[in-house]
């Protein structure tokens, strides 16, 4: 027998509910389940197999394909290329809404790069929030790395530019740029981020999002990209290159934000934050994610 729309509908609904319960944004759960339904409709059902297991298998494959990065997310090779050929530091900017873990992820990334022999400079470009510079000073001291800052109130794009100049001067391999948290529809703050990016043309822009976020994940990512697209006055505006997904240790198995974010941007999850110490930065395992989603 071949799978009909009627056979599939209740099973697809059930899987959609499962994904929503796992914190996948509703619209995205819907789209994924619809496309899986379309891909198996009319196919022959193998003997001894239920409709549910046929759909589950197709969904497993679809999610695996979605979450598997299209190209390597290993940033070390790219850093080495830029250092060797262009003879300048590789610049990484982190951005995202308030409190998601940008500064902590930046410090963890610094630790990771240092473990791989890279010389790093941290740039304190959150020039607004109380204690932001002191927070980075503490990390820089623990990591034994230089912090470039101009305190509070200065224009972040300019501080970033001078940090990169300093980094070039002292011959670092990587400059890590921290930015202030900002709500995705706060136009002045989004314009300021676009300016920092267009002035400094970073090699990577990592969006930091937390695994706890619900449906807002979709709006955060699409709005950040739209703002970067609209507010940079350049022909080829730099957009989000990758995602750091934080607080993965706080969600039990509700890993759906990973799906929402990757689906919305088409960009990969570069790192996952699994705690508050420097060791708590991991590469994401696609199979671990997919299994958590479907159990």
């Amino acid at each position: 027998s071949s799978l009909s729309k009627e056979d599939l509908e209740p099973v697809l609904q059930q899987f959609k509910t499962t994904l929503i319960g796992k914190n996948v944004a509703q619209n995205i759960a819907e789209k994924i389940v619809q496309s899986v339904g379309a891909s198996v409709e009319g196919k022959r059902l193998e003997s001894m197999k239920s409709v549910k297991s046929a759909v589950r298998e197709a969904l497993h494959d679809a999610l695996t394909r979605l979450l598997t990065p299209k190209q390597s997310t290993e940033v070390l090779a790219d850093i080495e290329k830029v250092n060797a050929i262009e003879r300048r530091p590789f610049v990484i900017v982190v951005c995202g809404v308030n409190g998601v873990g940008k500064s902590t992820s930046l410090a963890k990334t610094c630790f990771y790069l240092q473990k791989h022999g890279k010389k790093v400079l941290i740039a304190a470009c959150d020039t607004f929030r109380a204690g932001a510079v002191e927070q980075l000073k503490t990390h820089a001291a623990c990591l034994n790395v230089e912090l470039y800052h101009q305190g509070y109130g200065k224009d972040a794009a300019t501080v970033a530019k001078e940090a990169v100049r300093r980094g070039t001067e002292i011959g670092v391999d990587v400059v890590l740029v921290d930015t202030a948290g900002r709500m995705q529809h706060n136009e002045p703050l989004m314009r300021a981020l676009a300016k920092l990016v267009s002035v400094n043309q970073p090699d990577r822009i990592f969006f930091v999002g937390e695994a706890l976020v619900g449906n807002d994940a979709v709006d955060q990512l699409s709005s950040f990209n739209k703002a970067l697209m609209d507010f940079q006055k350049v022909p080829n505006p730099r957009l989000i290159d990758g995602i750091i997904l934080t607080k993965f240790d706080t969600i039990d198995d509700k890993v759906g934000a990973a799906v929402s974010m990757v689906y919305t941007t088409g960009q990969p999850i570069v790192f996952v934050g699994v705690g508050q110490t420097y060791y708590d930065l991991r590469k994401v395992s696609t199979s671990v994610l997919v299994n958590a989603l479907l159990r």
Partner: protein
Amino acid sequence: SLAGQMSETMRKLQGSDKLTEKNVESSVKEVRRALLDADVNLKVVNSLIKDVKARALGEKVLEGVKPGQQFIKIIYDELARIMGSEATPLARKDASAESPTVILLAGLQGAGKTTAAAKLALYCKSEAKPRRVLLCACDVYRPAAIEQLKTLGASIDTEVFAMGTDVEPERIAREAISYAKKNKFDTVIVDTAGRQVIDTKLMAELKRVKNSVTPDEILLVVDAMTGQEAANLTRAFNDAVGITGAILTKLDGDTRGGAALSVKQVSGRPIKFVGVGEKVEKLEPFYPERMASRILG
């Protein structure tokens, strides 16, 4: 009139003179979709719809109203009722009390506790009968957390009691209360480190802080954009330390804030304030009806 009788018969034939499973079906779908889109927890959505249907089905349809519209109105009223019938005030001991009113803030990492502590301090100082507020820095883990609170305190001309990061939080809290008594502060607001409930050591610490100062208010600080996990984390904090209320932060974003419903439904405790911006004056009392319409979209 005959025309009136005709339309009455039509209504009875269409089954639209009482709310039925069939005539509210598409509204149920719409409501379910809206609530899930607003990040209300799936289980909370299902039990809310089940409860409302149980009560609403069989009810007479009001004149001039479609059954679906009436169902949505019933859902809206139920949401507003769950959220709380009116704004709930912050604890405040009588002026003659021997010891200060103690407000303890707790919640997950990055929810907005430290900022909320300063916002609450400003709120208390701006009340009709202004309070004398002392802030207490009990986050001994996060880099520069004490500096953050001190900077915020300075910006609102409010003293911050701190003992550095090498003293246990329960002792810092206890000494803050003695300091408050000596210096005639009537309200102490205690900021704590972000923590998860599965972290047994940190939850034990939170209980020790609670036991050392017996707070009049334990407020769970929750980020409005929290997704499906909001219900679990609320239940867990409530089971562990017993919350008296919540503060929902970052509502200046576009998120519909369904976490509010999950928090209220799971803990039975009111949301007392909402954070609507980064600046220290961006704190508002919680208005249940406004939240209900925001969630329903």
